[in-house]
């Protein structure tokens, strides 16, 4: 199935191992052995992530979350790359990468906490070996390179992976990350999810050529993979992580995918994109194709699919109830951990706030 997407880019991209019709195909450079269990696991991951995402979207509509950035359509790119990581590897995700954080063992409620507004973080980055979601576009690419430089100094067998979008490739920080990664030959993988849009801006507002081509000019390889093909994503990411660990330096992966939802729950994509674009991409749905593959190959039956669906529903209930039950942070928590060491001014401000608020019988007006 060779089609030209509305923005003129050719589909499928260079590396594909599973067609939209669920057929396994081969590629001269990339292959991967995945057991039936592996594939069922990946399917389950994607379904659960999509369910979390849908539930979070619903919770936002109900006023339980301030905002949500949906990963709908990008599950294969996120889970496929996330599951390619070893336990010791370190991921640097963005606000949209729920499939990545899920793969790092971060719970849905930890993912939601920031969007509910009870924290600016959500999980223990050191324990999960996954940085907090970065919102300032591109900043985390440099953090990933720095972490990788540290790994290199330690002589450790660890790779880092930096996630960012097509829009982010325009930012200075991402390009400086390419420079530093190349110069120090850092064990880092740059994983760009080209979901064709940066809010309302189509991909060609950020780059006139395919994004993976950017890498060569910085001195390391770039590869474009079908981001809706979880098998290919995993194969390509694993190869890049291995390169990094083997001392062969950075790789840029462009996962060619599509943001099937709005930018965030605050966005209205009908203002800037055509519905037929979405239709084209529906046919390339990452979950559907793995499902068809599993079914056709007899690797999974209705029973399995139903069970995953039930699990997803249970998870949704858990998410819904858990989100509502999240404790409200007290006002004075804003002073916690601003500094690691004592800070008299903040102690005074905290004391003044507590005293002031205590002076009101009932709640504070604003």
């Amino acid at each position, binding site marked *: 199935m060779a089609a030209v997407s509305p923005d003129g880019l050719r589909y499928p991209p260079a590396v594909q191992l599973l067609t939209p019709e669920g057929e396994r195909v081969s590629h001269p450079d990339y292959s991967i052995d995945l057991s039936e269990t592996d594939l069922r696991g990946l399917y389950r991951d994607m379904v659960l992530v999509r369910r979390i995402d849908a539930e979070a979207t619903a919770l936002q509509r109900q006023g339980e979350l301030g*905002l949500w950035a949906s990963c709908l359509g990008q599950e294969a790119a996120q889970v496929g790359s996330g599951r390619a990581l070893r336990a010791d590897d370190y991921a640097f995700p963005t606000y949209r990468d729920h499939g990545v954080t899920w793969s790092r063992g971060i719970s849905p409620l930890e993912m939601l906490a920031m969007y509910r507004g009870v924290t600016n973080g959500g999980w223990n980055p050191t324990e999960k070996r996954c940085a907090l979601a970065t919102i300032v576009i591109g900043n985390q690419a440099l953090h990933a390179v720095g972490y990788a430089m540290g790994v290199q100094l330690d002589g450790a067998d660890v790779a880092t992976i930096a996630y960012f979008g097509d*829009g982010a490739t325009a930012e200075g920080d991402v390009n400086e990350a390419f420079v530093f990664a190349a110069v120090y030959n850092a064990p880092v993988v740059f994983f760009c999810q080209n979901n064709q849009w940066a*809010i*309302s801006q189509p991909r060609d507002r*950020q780059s006139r050529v395919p994004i993976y081509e950017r890498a060569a000019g910085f001195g390391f390889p770039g590869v474009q993979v079908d981001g809706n093909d979880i098998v290919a994503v995993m194969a390509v990411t694993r190869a890049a992580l291995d390169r990094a660990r083997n001392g062969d330096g950075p790789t840029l992966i462009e996962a060619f995918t599509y943001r099937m939802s709005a930018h965030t729950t605050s966005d209205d994509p009908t203002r800037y994109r055509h519905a037929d674009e979405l239709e084209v991409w529906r046919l390339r749905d990452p979950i559907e194709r793995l499902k068809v593959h599993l079914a056709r190959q007899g690797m999974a039956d209705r029973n399995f699919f139903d069970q995953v669906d039930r699990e997803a529903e249970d998870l949704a209930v858990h998410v819904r109830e858990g989100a509502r039950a999240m404790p409200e942070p007290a006002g004075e928590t*804003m002073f916690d951990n601003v500094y690691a060491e004592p800070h008299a001014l903040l102690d005074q401000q905290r004391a003044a706030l507590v005293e002031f608020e205590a002076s009101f019988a009932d709640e504070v007006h604003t």
Partner: protein
Amino acid sequence: MTTMTMAKALNVGLRRAMESDSRVLLFGEDIGRLGGVFRITDGLQKDFGEHRVMDAPLAESGIVGTAVGLAMRGYRPVVEIQFDGFVYPAFDQIVSQVAKLHRRSEGMLAMPIVIRIPFGGGIGAVEHHSESPEAYFAHTAGLRVLSPSDPQAAYLTIQQAIACQDPVVYFEPKRRYWDKGDVDEAVDALDPSQAPDPWRARIVRRGSDVTVACYGPMVRTCLEAATASADASIEVVDLQSLSPLDIDTLAESVERTGRLVVVHEAAGSLGLGAEVAARITERCFFALEAPVLRVTGYDVPYPPSRVEEHFLPGLDRVLDAVDRAMEY
């Protein structure tokens, strides 16, 4: 007179500026078809074309840096920074180039650039979307800094900022975007006989006991506090121009009231309130019956949204400061 939101007033003001000067260009992320995430530029690309309302790549230094070049070519770029917390990647271009080029070139290169920044909290947003970075710019010589507080002021000052030959960092109080007010569209913003001087503070409520100075989103809060105040007669001054500060208007008020409270959302340390307090104290030393008190955000990063109401100066904190000032 038309009643409209501040968002609409800015939209209409931008339209007027583009109509009256073909060198005015709008430039920023998602400002075209989408009309900006706050819809401030809604419809303008449709009416003025892609060449005058330009969607930019996602790179703030790039946006401001190319705006410098556009200004050198004779254009008057009006740049939109999507949210307060995303102006920092452009800080270098703003501080080292935009602010300094007129001086560096000994007046031969003007930098009539407006950098629009929706700022402040109170909208329940995620991190980096509720900051008040105005002090960084008010400390930077070569820039002017404006912040409107109501639709009429927004309508006029956005046009005046665009017509100004100096670079203006223009802070829009995003949580007041949807507040409505009367706008007299018949006023010619660029005619000094019709429109007030944008660089002057505005006494927005008369009072006799305490002066409360504020700007942007806090003006409404302070007006509400003044109305609610039972004990003290509060005069509210909307600074509006954060650089240069109109100390004359404020001093005249303080000479009458003898007391000053300054209110802003930004962290207190080195915030605008510090400068206002220092200047007014020097100027009105013998008239002040109490030290200038400040009601500001705390010296912490902007907190998660479920905590923001504790961070933001509200009516009660303003009144508490007024009471404290009265007790001296």
